[in-house]
């Protein structure tokens, strides 16, 4: 069972690493952010698989931290994207 779980962890990690091609190709910032979000979730999944396979309890805590950081990364992206847009729409309203 340990070998199967580790193999699954490597497979999931390879899949999300392949998804990083989307960061190269773009075209928009949101597409790049989506690939980063998939990397976050895939990283959590492979950490959980590896942690359960090896019986290392601390790895599960690392996955929990990664889940929290991935959430904050997405929210920060949206915050940064929407701030100047609001200014533009305010100017358009004035004009």
């Amino acid at each position, binding site marked *: 069972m340990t070998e199967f779980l580790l193999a699954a962890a490597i497979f999931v990690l390879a899949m999300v690493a392949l998804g990083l091609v989307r960061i190269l190709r773009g075209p928009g910032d949101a597409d790049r952010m989506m690939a980063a979000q998939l990397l976050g979730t895939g990283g959590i*999944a492979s950490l959980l698989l590896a942690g359960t396979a090896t019986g290392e309890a601390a790895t*599960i805590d690392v996955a929990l931290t990664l*889940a929290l950081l991935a959430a904050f990364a997405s929210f920060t992206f949206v915050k940064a994207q929407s701030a100047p847009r609001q200014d533009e729409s305010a100017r358009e309203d004035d004009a």
Partner: protein
Amino acid sequence: MNAVLDLWTVLAVTAGAILFLAGTTGLLRFPDAYTRLHALTKADNLGLGLVVLGLLPQVDSVSAGLKLLCIWALVLLSGATASQLIARVLLRRDTHS
């Protein structure tokens, strides 16, 4: 009983890994950002969920299993919120340009 639980782990983790494969394929092959967001959220919620459900029989204690479920719940909540927010950014960009 043990063999049944192991079989469940193999089936659920394999299904979760296939969903990650589908998510990556969708992210790379779908034509626009909205459909890519759709592919991403399936991999996020269901892929990780199946991996967590598959791992539940393999953990030592009840608290370790609850921790796995908590991580899944956190990813579900943050993924749902983040995809709504990203879709709103995309929609605003498309209607303004």
